[in-house]
């Protein structure tokens, strides 16, 4: 009993973690299902068929590919733009700081429905056709704020004396930036990019407002499929993405801790 009491916190934490992971577990389990009809909601039979043909349903891998392309492009652009803004905010004093902060904060405080619909109104007015370009623009927009916030936190905690030390040791402004500032801000930038990618990859609401039939992203595909019965391949791809994320994050961790420990 005392043992239980002492480990109460651990139990609570693990219970919460369980709650957070249970859908993934269910998704993974059902990725090995062989549904009798067209709906994959009831366990019938073990099968690795979907794993052997992850693209076996029309459109699924195209939509995954599109989501990955948009996710990578959007997170790249948002990371570049956001990092620049974060550096300005974290490293410089200038007039209009407060306004800039507000402008960066607002997209995070705006419900997605509102953002998606307002963009649609604008695009229609400007004659920008719906489709992957429109989606990309939207994704860059809402990822930007999150990148700024993630990178700014890091930049603000950087010791400005390190840059002075670099200058003192003969590094000019460009060298100082490339050799000292950027590497030190890198974890924040990586975190921002990762966050941006996951937000873009996962977005449905804003995307839905700006998509065209030729730009079905993976979440839209899932949504569409859910109205008719989701193919097992969706579970397979969901599980693969989860595993990739685990590998990427664990790998990143291992890499940075190995760098830290470097003999």
């Amino acid at each position, binding site marked *: 009993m005392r043992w239980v009491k002492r480990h109460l916190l651990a139990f609570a934490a693990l219970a919460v973690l369980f709650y957070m992971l249970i859908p993934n577990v269910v998704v993974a389990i059902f990725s090995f299902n062989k549904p009798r009809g067209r709906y994959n909601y009831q366990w019938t039979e073990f099968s690795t068929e979907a794993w052997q043909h992850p693209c076996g349903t029309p459109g699924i891998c195209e939509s995954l590919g599109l989501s990955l392309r948009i996710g990578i492009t959007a997170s790249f652009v948002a990371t570049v733009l956001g990092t620049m803004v974060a550096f300005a905010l974290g490293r410089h004093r200038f007039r209009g700081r407060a306004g800039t902060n507000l402008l960066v904060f607002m997209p995070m405080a705006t419900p997605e429905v509102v953002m998606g619909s307002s963009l649609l109104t604008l695009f229609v007015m400007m004659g920008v056709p719906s489709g992957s370009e429109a989606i990309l623009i939207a994704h860059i927009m809402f990822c930007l704020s999150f990148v700024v916030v993630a990178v700014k936190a890091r930049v603000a905690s950087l*010791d400005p*004396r*390190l840059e*002075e*030390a*670099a*200058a*003192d*040791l*003969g*590094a*000019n402004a460009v*060298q*100082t930036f490339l*050799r*000292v500032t950027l*590497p*030190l801000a*890198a974890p924040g930038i990586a975190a921002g990019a990762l966050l941006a990618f996951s937000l873009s990859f996962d977005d449905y609401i804003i995307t839905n407002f700006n998509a065209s039939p030729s730009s079905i992203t993976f979440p839209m595909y899932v949504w569409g499929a859910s109205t008719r019965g989701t193919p097992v391949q969706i579970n397979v791809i969901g599980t693969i993405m989860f595993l990739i994320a685990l590998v990427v994050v664990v790998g990143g961790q291992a890499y940075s801790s190995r760098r*830290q420990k*470097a*003999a």
Partner: protein
Amino acid sequence: MAEQLSGDLRLVGLTKSFEQFTAVQPTDLTISQGSFFALLGPSGCGKTTTLRMIAGLEDPSGGQILIGDKDITSTKAYQRNVNTVFQSYALFPHMTVLDNVAFGLKRRGDKDAKRKAEEALELVQLAEVGRKKPVQLSGGMQQRVALARAIVNRPDVLLLDEPLGALDLKLRRQMQIELKRIQSEVGITFVHVTHDQEEAMTMADTIAVMNGGRIEQLGDPATLYESPRSTFVANFLGQSNLLRATVTGEPGSDGTVVVRSHDTDLEVSRAHLPDGIREIFLGMRPEKLRLGTGGGPNQLKGTVSDVSFTGVATQYLVRMPWGRELTVVQQNDGSARAVVGENVTISWAAEHGFALDAHQDADAGVDTED
């Protein structure tokens, strides 16, 4: 850039103001090449600002900085042949120790950067930690890396901003010895900022005591210590006993002058008395005072109010009839010790006293905290 235009470091009317506030008053100073120069003063007196101007990290509001004949006032930091050991070390956390040390050389395109960096690490006895990251080192080791990183560039001038401030006493003493050794080995000009006076005195050839943005006194350690020219220097550089006194007599044939303090006649060397001043503070260093009558013509009686043993020496506080306590330090060389409550006589030689103009604050420099 690589040419070694070495020479004395000269500050000419150098000054720095921040908005409302002048951190460094116009300062003229020459620091000769290859010397170990210490800048000493209380917190906020402008030491770091001065150093930063020399390094090029702060733009002077006025004046010039020269090395030899070359005016470097408007040269950028990365173009100056000056390096700094920062108080915070400012080691690059993402690089190995070796990369840290090689950083400056690489920026200048030195082909031999790695070998030179390894040599520099050997100089500070850290050859074996080159592959580690700075966080994996102790404070003392980090400090030595910072030193190697600066020295390896063979700058004309090396600036050290309280490099030992964060170390504990024992390590600090060790590092002081090491710094001295390195300086005599590489022979470049060291400008060392500290607010530990003992550190300054053991290490420097010349000390400048700064106060409120001005250099208050400049000289070799012994001269500064034995003949301070202001109460501030007297109190800041070591401890001083200051007695308010009036010059009553004329110089005698033995070169001493009689002054009167608290109804007692005391003698002070003529040489130590500024001209034309009658109201003075008579100052005596604690270690110059003797308990007993053997010390000289000057004698005061009092009661021991505190005794504290510090190992090498014992420090006594002796309360004077007029309430003030004098500090006496006596080496524990086996001579008899006084006890609290004992009535004692304090004596000292006339030449060990120094006189200061009484028109200043007797406690200036005592309490360095604001």
